[in-house]
C-alpha cells in the first residue's frame, strides 16, 4: 500500500509541473508588455525598463521560470493589481465559503443520487426507475444558472423564505447547494443504478438468495456494499466537477467564494490573482485525484498491484 501511495504521489509531479509551465507561460502569452502593465500606461521608456530590471523580466525565460517555481513553493503569490492586497490573503478569505459550498452540495448529491440510483436499481422498471432515468437526462441538460434563478424567483422574491444571496447562515446554503448538487446527483443516480444492477447479477448474490438469505440482507450486505465501490471513485471525480460548477453558482447567488474572485479578476485583468487561482484549482484537482486513487486502492487490492 505504501509503495502504491508513493507511486501515485510521484505521478502527480508531471501534472503539477505541466500546469505550472502553463500558468507561467500565461504571463508571457498576454498581449502587451508585463513591465509596462506594472509601470502604468503613461510611464516613460526608462521607467518601464527600470520595472523590467526590478522584476527581473530581462533575465532568460528558464531562469524566470525556476524563480517562479521557487516563489510558488514559498507561497509568494504577489499582490493584486486591483486592491494591492496580497493574493494569499484574498484567496484565504474566499477559500472556506467555496469549500463549504462544495461539501454541502456533495452531501446533497450523494444522498439524492445514490438514494435514487439504488431505488431504481432495486425496483428496475418501476416508478423510481423511470423517474431517475428522466431526472438524469434532465439533470445533465439543465443549465445550473437557470435553475438557480428560478429557485431564487420562487423562494426569495415571491415567497420570501430564503435570502437571494450572500453567505452566513444555513439558509444561505439551501438554494446554492441544491443548484450545484443536483446536476451531480443526476450523474450519480445513473451510475449507481448501473453499478447496482451489475453486482445484482453476480453469482454470489444469486447464491445468497438461493440459500435463503433474507432479501433485506441480500440488498444491503451482498449487493449494495459492493456496488458502492465504484461510486467512491465517481464521488471523487465529481468533486472536481463541483469546483468548476461552483464558479457559475457563486455568480448567481453572490457567494463570496473563489469563483466570484476569479470572475472579478478576469474582468479586471488582475493577473496575479488569476494566475494564483488557476494554480490553486490545479492543485485541488490533483489532490482530489490522488485521494480517489488511494481510496480506490484501499477498497480494491487489485488496483494496487497493477
Amino acid at each position, binding site marked *: 500500500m505504501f509503495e502504491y501511495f508513493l507511486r501515485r504521489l510521484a505521478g502527480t509531479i*508531471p*501534472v503539477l509541473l*505541466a*500546469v505550472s509551465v502553463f500558468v507561467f507561460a*500565461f504571463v508571457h*502569452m*498576454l498581449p502587451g508588455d508585463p513591465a509596462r502593465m506594472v509601470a502604468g500606461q503613461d510611464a516613460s521608456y526608462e521607467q518601464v525598463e527600470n520595472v523590467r530590471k526590478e522584476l527581473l523580466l530581462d533575465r532568460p525565460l528558464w531562469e524566470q521560470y525556476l524563480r517562479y517555481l521557487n516563489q510558488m513553493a514559498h507561497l509568494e503569490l504577489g499582490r493584486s493589481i486591483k486592491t494591492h492586497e496580497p493574493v494569499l490573503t484574498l484567496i484565504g478569505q474566499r477559500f472556506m465559503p467555496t469549500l463549504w459550498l462544495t461539501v454541502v452540495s456533495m452531501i446533497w448529491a450523494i444522498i439524492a443520487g445514490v438514494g435514487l440510483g439504488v431505488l431504481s436499481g432495486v425496483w428496475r422498471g418501476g416508478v423510481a426507475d423511470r423517474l431517475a432515468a428522466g431526472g438524469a*437526462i*434532465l439533470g*445533465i*441538460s*439543465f*443549465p*445550473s*444558472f*437557470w435553475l438557480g*434563478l*428560478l429557485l*431564487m*424567483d420562487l423562494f426569495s*422574491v*415571491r415567497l420570501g423564505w430564503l435570502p437571494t444571496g450572500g453567505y452566513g447562515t444555513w439558509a444561505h446554503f439551501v438554494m446554492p447547494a441544491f443548484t450545484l448538487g443536483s446536476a451531480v446527483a443526476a450523474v450519480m443516480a445513473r451510475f449507481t443504478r448501473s453499478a447496482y444492477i451489475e453486482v445484482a447479477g453476480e453469482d454470489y448474490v444469486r447464491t445468497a438468495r438461493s440459500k435463503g438469505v433474507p432479501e433485506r440482507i441480500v440488498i444491503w450486505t451482498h449487493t449494495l456494499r459492493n456496488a458502492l465501490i465504484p461510486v467512491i471513485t465517481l464521488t471523487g*471525480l465529481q468533486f*472536481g*466537477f463541483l*469546483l*468548476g*460548477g461552483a*464558479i*457559475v453558482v457563486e*455568480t*448567481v447567488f453572490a457567494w463570496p467564494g473563489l469563483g466570484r474572485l*476569479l*470572475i472579478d*479578476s*478576469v*474582468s479586471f*485583468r488582475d493577473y496575479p490573482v*488569476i494566475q494564483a487561482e*488557476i494554480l490553486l*484549482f*490545479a492543485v485541488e*484537482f*490533483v489532490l482530489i*485525484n490522488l485521494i480517489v486513487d488511494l481510496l480506490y486502492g484501499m477498497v480494491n487490492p487489485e488496483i494496487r498491484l497493477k
Partner: protein
Amino acid sequence: MTMTNIRSPGREFWRRFRRQHVAMVSLAVIIILVAAAFLAPWIAPYSQTTPDYDALLEGPSWAHWAGTDSYGRDILSRMIWGGQVSLTVGFLSVVLGCVVGVALGIISGFFGGWIDGLIMRVIDVMLAFPGILPAIAVVAILGPGLVNVIYAIALSAVPVFARLVRGTTLALKETLYVQASRSIGVSRTKLMLRHILPGTLPAVIVYASLRMGTSILTAAALSFIGLGAQPPSPEWGAMLSDGRSYLGVADHITIFPGLAILITVLAFNLFGDGLRDALDQKLR
C-alpha cells in the same frame, strides 16, 4: 444469400434510428432550431437590438409573444437571433475540438511508441480537469469574448475525442484489411485517412452530438458569468444574466431564454443517446 438480403449500413442505421421515437423527436427539434436560427433575418418579428422605450419590460402579449426586456427589445426575436449565436458557437467548438482530437488520436494510436506516450501524457493532464473549469481558465487567459469561448470549449473537448479515437485506431490497425493495404505499400497517410479514419467515425459522431449539448451549455454559462458574449449580443446566457435584475418584476426575461437553452441541450443529448443506440456504440 441473394443481394436483397444485404442492407447497406446507412439504411440499416436509419431503420434502427427510426424506431427511437424520442431521438426522432429530438432530431425534429434540432432541425427546427437550426432552421429558425438561420432564417432569423426573415422570421424574427422585431429587430434584435433596436430599443423601444414605449414597451419596456412588457409581459408576453400578442404583439410580443415572449415579452420585452428592459430596453423594450422583443425577447422572442432576440432568442431567435441568439440561437444563431449558440448553435454556431457549439458547432464550431465541437468541430474544432473534434478535428484536433481525432487527428491526435489517430496519430497516437497508429504510430505508437514515444509519440503515443507523449500525446497520451498530455491528454491525461487535460483529462484531470473536468467540467467547465478548463474553459474558464482558457478564457481567463485569452480574455472574455465569443471567439475565445470557442477556443476554450474546443480545447476541453480535445482529450475525450483523442482517447476515443486512439482506442479504435489500435483495434483497426490490426484488422486484416489494414494489414493487407499496408503490405501492398499503401502510404501511412493514406492508411490513416482512407482506411482507419472512417472506422472511427461512428463513435466520433455519437460523441460529437452529445458534446454539442455540453458545449452549448458551457458557452451559455460563460456568457452568463460575463466571460462570453458581451451585451448587446442576444446570446441566451447573456440574456439570462440580464433577467436576473428583474426577477419578480419581469420573470419572462429569465424564463424564455433559459427554456431555449434547456430545450436545445436536451434535444442534442437525447439525439446523441439515440444515435449511440442505433450505431451500437458503447461510450464509457
